[in-house]
């Protein structure tokens, strides 16, 4: 079976500065793949190239065995490659439920003209069911009708994750999903990740919390100044002293 997401030789530079340098990455279904690295290592830029937010300068990306290099991010989202952002991108004027519903409604492209003519959306009922299930799964049912703009950042992280899930994806790219969460929330989030991976989802995430990485990750990639410095099972990769010093400077 081909991996959920595979990248080969992905490179990206801004104004002549190489930010992502020939990165190879494989994310398998049912696994949690974590990318760690110091600030400025190019993790978010790599995510942007993988999810079509910006085009890579070189390299190729495969999603479930099909080459999707150069696809736009909305087309990839409809294909089942969902992502969240480091900086929250929820729709502040919409309720939490409507935030999720947009993802549930748009993961198939259906006629706009039907909408203009005022005809009901054929997939509308299913979308409502999906949204209800995801809200319950993430414990967001209580805030379903609250305007997203007024919620605390920890809840917004969940809303964004829920929005990604409502597109019924097979691959999830999460950019620092645990930042802004307190200890209890992080623990709950950790449980959630395992439940997701168990549902045949490939999860790729950028994460700083080494404890979380240790517990959750199946595969770890260490990125340093644009390229992958090491990859492998977390125990082996994180056990090496040189990785820790790469991340945090000299160890005391």
């Amino acid at each position, binding site marked *: 079976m081909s991996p959920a997401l595979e990248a080969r030789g992905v490179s990206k530079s801004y104004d002549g500065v190489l930010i992502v340098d020939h990165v190879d990455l494989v994310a398998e279904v049912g696994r949690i793949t974590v990318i760690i690295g110091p600030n400025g290592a190019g993790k978010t830029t790599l995510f942007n190239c993988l*999810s079509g*937010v910006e085009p890579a300068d070189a390299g190729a990306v495969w999603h479930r065995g099909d080459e999707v290099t150069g696809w*736009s*991010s*909305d*087309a990839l*989202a*409809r294909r089942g490659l*969902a*992502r*969240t*952002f480091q900086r929250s*991108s*929820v*729709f*502040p*004027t*919409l309720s939490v439920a*409507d935030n999720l*519903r*947009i*993802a549930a*409604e*748009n*993961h198939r*492209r259906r006629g*706009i003209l039907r*909408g*203009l*003519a*005022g005809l*009901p*959306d054929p997939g*509308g009922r299913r979308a409502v069911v999906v949204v209800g299930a995801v809200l319950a799964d993430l414990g967001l049912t209580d805030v379903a009708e609250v305007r997203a703009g007024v919620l605390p950042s920890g809840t917004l992280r969940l809303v964004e994750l829920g*929005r*990604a899930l409502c*597109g019924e994806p097979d691959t999830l790219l999460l950019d620092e999903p645990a930042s802004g969460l307190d200890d209890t929330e992080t623990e709950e989030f950790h449980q959630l990740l395992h439940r997701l991976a168990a549902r045949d989802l490939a999860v790729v995430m950028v994460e700083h919390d080494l404890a979380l990485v240790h517990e959750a990750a199946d595969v770890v990639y260490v990125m340093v100044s644009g390229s992958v410095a090491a990859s492998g099972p977390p125990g082996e990769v994180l056990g090496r002293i040189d990785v820790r010093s790469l991340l945090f400077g000299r160890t005391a």
Partner: protein
Amino acid sequence: MLTLELALAGLGIGSIAGLSGLGLLVTYRLTGVFNLAFGAIAMGVAYLLWQEVRIWHWPLALAALFDLVVVCPAFGVLIERLVFRPLQRRVATPAERLVASLGVLIVLLGAATLTWGAQARLDAPSLVPYRQLRLPGGAKLPLGTVVGLAVITVVVLGLAIGRRTSLGLQVRAVVERRELAQLQGLDANRVAALGWALGSTLAGVAGVLMAPTLRLQPFGFTLVMLETMAVVVVARLTSPVRAVVGGLFVGVAQAELTRVHLQGHARALLEAVTSNLFVVALLAAVLVVRRLDEAGGTDAGTTARLATRGELPPVRGWWMLAALALAAPLLFGAPDRRAALAVPALAIVLVSIVVVSGYSGQISLGQAGFAGLGALVAARLAAGTLPGLPRIPGVAVLVVAPLLVVPVGVLMGWPAIRRRGLFLAITTFALSVAMSRFVFEQPAATSGVLVHPPDAFGSDNNFYVLELLCLAVAFAIVRNLHHGRLGRALIAVRDDEAGALACGVDVRRLKLFVFAASSALAALGGALLAMGTRAFDPVAFDPIRGLIWFAAVVVFGIDSAPGAVIGAGLLIALDTSLPSGTSTLVIGCAALLLGRLPGGLLHSAHRLLERLLRRPAPSGPPPTPSRAIRLTSAGRAVARSIHRPPAAGGSAP
């Protein structure tokens, strides 16, 4: 073959364009506001000079000195203080600032039309006596050109030197990061005032120099000045030198093109291109330039802050009132009824602006172009004179003509997909100007066009009913666009475009679709507008009128279709009952007040009404502190020192 003589002659217009571009650029760089009003400021100053010299018989030098040294800077400082500083203080979005500058433009237009009338004047005083300077080699250079070039040189040098002084450094700091600069104790307001004073003065100089070569007329003169914004787009809103070179280049090219002679249709086309070369340059610039260096960056959600923020709560029975008001003209006397025919038609055009700008957040200043195109296509279809198409009988014209305009809307929406905010606004305006100059004003397109209402709707009453039916269709389209899946997707795009893409929303297709729907609606409205007056009048679809329409929509709530209808009614009522220019002045003033009435007039009126009608809420028991709170001794001391307020809801003294 290029000739030196023609090139030198072209430098005259080129230097004026360069000057007005410089003014626009300086204001933009120093204040972050793209000052659409600069065209109207140039027009106003040119008129003022005319008034002083021709009517009051002031000496020319004194009048010019007074206008350019006192009036212009004072006006600049005044609008900074009254209009833009309040916006700056509450960190207004670029769209809000653009609307404010539109307000200044429209106020000046209205005031000028009221004062001097709409007729053209040909005797604008010439600031520089017409004298030719003989250059070595025998070529001649008009003195006016020399003056223009000298002013440009002084300004560009001044800017270059100013950058290096400590004042220049402060200015750059303020422009770069206003809040941080203010924290350092720099006076950002003084920098902004400087920007406005300089910008208005340069606009004034350009206007005064331009006036003798043109007819002085409020709308026409302003539009010509606005067309010179081409050089600013070429300069990508940054480089003064590039703006000047661009202006000079277009001016020289214009002069050189007069030497080319062609025959037949090509000749008419060439003449149109030559006399409107700045429009061609503007169009080419907005299509070729990839990105404008916008101050503060482009932001999605550009028009979000102008929206009414949520639906208006329904006022019971509003639809009965609305139906009565809309049906009332059926009982009017003949002349008033004839005037009222324009209300539903204009309302549909305004609703088309609500469609494109209200929910999806794309500023479109070009709806007048689609409206005019719709009118023209409908008239030619009905007469059977549209090349390649048969005569379309009766009401079918009102369906076919808008559909024919849709491809044009899509074509014009294409460059708009990747553009937002200011760049999109300029692009749509440029397209509308091009349509006006190259279609509506061309005899080949409009001569012999007869406009009639469809056969069965010849009487004013019947035609009015037909218009109401069309308006109902427009309302249904808006409703469907703003509700359900489409409405949610549009709000998502407006709120956060990257987020919408991540949700799988096909943003490009959605934007194009909205553009297409809006252009069809505008075309329908335009066709009805022309049928109501039984004539195709290019003036009715002037790009400047499009700006006024946009401002009217914003004033009455950019996402409110009922507001658009009320706006149309008000515009027509004012135009028929009061001197021309009044409605323009009213809309302009209201646009300036928007800073204080967020969400538009309608929303503010509604909130006021609600506040007046609402009974004071019944006062419940005072909130008791939860028993779970355990106070430490320090906390108890604090609690003792706080006096309980006598009534619930009051705050501690």
